[in-house]
């Protein structure tokens, strides 16, 4: 009995170590001459990081003569804190952190900064005045979404489908929208007939919400500001059931293949696209710059960003790109989506990019 238990334990331990040694996408040891840059991913299984971000970061670092090392926190705050220490122990001179939790990672970041290791907060905010914050300008995303919808429907009944309440981005986006439509709301040209947060940005929930708003307003909805593509898909399904798809403008962001197809079909008005490769490249180049000079304020193309936590953060705020029916060729040319997928079901000749 005892031996069986020991054998089982040993087998379990072997499985766990085996899994760990294959899971982390490591990039080899420190180079002899180059600067070592450590990247702490929060969760490598998400499509975006592996497919678009990491290759761009790697390429930018390689081009600058640096060495890339990385590990994966598997969505755990505690693991990420350990991972950051590991990267420092492996000789990382600059850290790039995609935070699982911007608050929980702060002690590790503060420690690294005080030891003279510059930190780049990748895509997600870390409230520490010493870090370089690299992201897409989320307030601008909200402005872009509202701008296109406002252009299509300057007056009328608006529904606003917001993302997860616990996610600061939902409020950044809403803030950007307010800058565009605020005046018209005040003057009464725009009436907000429905506005809600959506748990976990769930498309199916957004669909139910939209159905209820349509019912409550007897279909008198003229435009929908949806904060992302997934929820826009739910909204469009609800509109389709009422025969309103393509007649009511809908916004979104992320450049999802299904959403871009909806833009081509005319069901979605605008899809704000954030090319993850640009962010990866910018962060990689900034890391190389920080190898040479540790002062984050001297990194090129930065601005001062007033964070919600009242910090002034040196930031790289990349400009997203609004995609409408007229400039779909941008995503095609960038190799973001194939023409088959983009143009599935599109009537020939109705969209220039699908011609």
């Amino acid at each position, binding site marked *: 009995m005892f031996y069986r238990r020991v054998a089982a334990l040993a087998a379990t331990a072997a499985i766990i170590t085996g899994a760990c040694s294959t899971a982390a996408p490591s990039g080899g040891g420190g180079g002899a001459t180059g600067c070592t840059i450590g990247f702490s991913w929060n969760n490598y*299984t*998400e*499509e*975006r990081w*592996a*497919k678009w971000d990491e290759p761009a970061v790697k390429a930018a670092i390689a081009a600058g003569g640096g060495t890339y090392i990385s590990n994966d926190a598997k969505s755990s705050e505690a693991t990420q804190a350990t991972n950051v220490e590991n990267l420092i122990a492996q000789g990382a001179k600059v850290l790039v952190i995609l935070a699982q939790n911007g608050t929980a990672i702060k002690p590790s970041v503060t420690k690294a900064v005080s030891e003279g290791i510059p930190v780049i907060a990748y895509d997600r905010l870390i409230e520490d005045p010493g870090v370089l914050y690299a992201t897409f300008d989320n307030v601008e995303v909200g402005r872009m979404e509202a701008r296109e919808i406002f252009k299509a429907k300057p007056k009328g009944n608006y529904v606003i489908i917001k993302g997860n*309440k616990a996610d600061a981005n939902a409020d950044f986006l809403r803030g950007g929208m307010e800058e565009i439509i605020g005046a018209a709301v005040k003057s009464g040209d725009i009436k907000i007939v*429905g*506005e*809600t*947060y*959506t*748990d*976990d*940005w*769930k*498309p*199916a*929930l957004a*669909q*139910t*919400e939209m*159905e*209820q*708003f349509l*019912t*409550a307003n007897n*279909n008198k909805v003229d435009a929908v500001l949806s904060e992302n*593509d*997934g929820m826009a*898909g*739910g909204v*469009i*399904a609800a509109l*389709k*059931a*009422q*025969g*309103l798809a393509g*007649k009511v403008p809908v916004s979104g962001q992320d450049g*999802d*293949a*299904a*959403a871009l*197809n909806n833009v081509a079909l005319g069901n979605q008005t605008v899809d704000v696209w954030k090319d993850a490769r640009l962010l990866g490249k910018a962060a990689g180049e900034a890391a190389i710059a920080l190898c040479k000079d540790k002062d984050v304020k001297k990194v090129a193309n930065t601005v001062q960003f007033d964070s919600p936590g009242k910090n002034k953060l040196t930031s790289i705020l990349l400009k997203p790109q609004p995609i409408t029916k007229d400039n779909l060729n941008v995503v095609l040319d960038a190799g973001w989506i194939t023409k*088959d997928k983009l143009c*599935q*079901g599109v009537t020939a000749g109705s969209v220039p990019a699908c011609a």
Partner: protein
Amino acid sequence: MTEASAAERPQRSIGQRLRDPFQRVRGAAPSLEVDTRLLGMLAALAVIWIGFNVMSGGLFLTARNLWNLSVQTSVVAVMATGMVLIIVSRNIDLSVGSILGFTGYLMAMLQAIWIPTTFGLGFDQPYTWIVSLAIGLVVGAAIGGFQGFIIAFGRVPSFIVTLGGLLVWRGLIFELAQGQTIAPMDKTFSLLGGGPSGAIGAIPSWIFGLAACAGVIWSLWAGRRRRRKYDFPLRPMWAEVTLALGSSALILGAVWVANSYPWPPSLATQYAESHGITEPPGGLQIPTGIAIPVLIMLGVTIVMTFIATRRRFGRYVFAIGGNPEAAELGGINTKRTIMLTYVLMGALCAIAGAIQAARLNAGVTSAGVQSELDTIAAAVIGGTSFAGGIGTIPGAVLGAVIMQSLRSGMVILRVDSPIQDIVVGTVLVTAVGLDALFRRRTA
């Protein structure tokens, strides 16, 4: 419990009857032999509906909103019917949301990518929807059977196995297509999700309603004949007639509501144009009728009720839940029975996944997140007891309707989602708490 008594009292076990406080109510109710708990839930539902109707200024009790509500309920209701059997046999299934997500995503991949592109057979083939659905069902049943095998034969607690499943199947969704949204669905397949073209129209709805009435009357008559055969006390004739009339009125009323929701004007206009009909002033009025997902839900409810109350398998499940040791000693193959409940649950998750994907017209990674909680809550609000051995399928469906009524009513009243969660959570605990209190008081 013998087969005969099971047939006589289809809905409840003996233990429940002994504990059921409402059995002591004097007057006419006992001779109707209607589950008083079910009546209590109908009353609660009526209070909720009327309350929302008043607060929303008459928006809630419109044909359109009730039609929406019926479609929105179908996903959770389908899974709740299976969850009843799982909980009755003193187990739990936390993985249903993830199985829904996985099978739904798999079916989406099949019809949007694999069949048309990978195998090069093209989009919207006549067989696409049925092949996707069949594969989804088989995979769902297999997943359920796999988990059930570990639970029943491996003797690993169901909480642990299905907690593992919750993580594994959700994780596998990402492995299938790195988290992309898969759209659009096959045209025939998307009918499974409803929408005016996914409803059966006025005349078939009436036919369906009349058939349902005939079924109710036939089952009352058959029950009476069976009782006479075994020398059981009969219901008074007036009670039989009241039951027949009452159920028929409910069924035909529901059909009437579904038929008084006309097609949305812009769809009706499109239809008129494509069929060369000149629209009359005020627009063409096409009755929508019962939605296909609702038909699926009703079909599942009837089949599951039949399995639970009239089949040996179903009675075994209740017997195991009432007393597992006695059931095993009594010669029931408990392991096989438990495993089968999970096979059934997995297949039901796949049906729910198909409805969900069809309704959204897309396969998304977040489909079914947290719906295990809604499903368990629906079963429990519907009177299923965690102590095992007690629970009814129609009760669970009604529980799902109550949950969805609360949610969609609050959206109409523009209550934000965190507050919605607070209300639904409070209602869940209050409902089960009150139920337990009454049982203790009167036991």
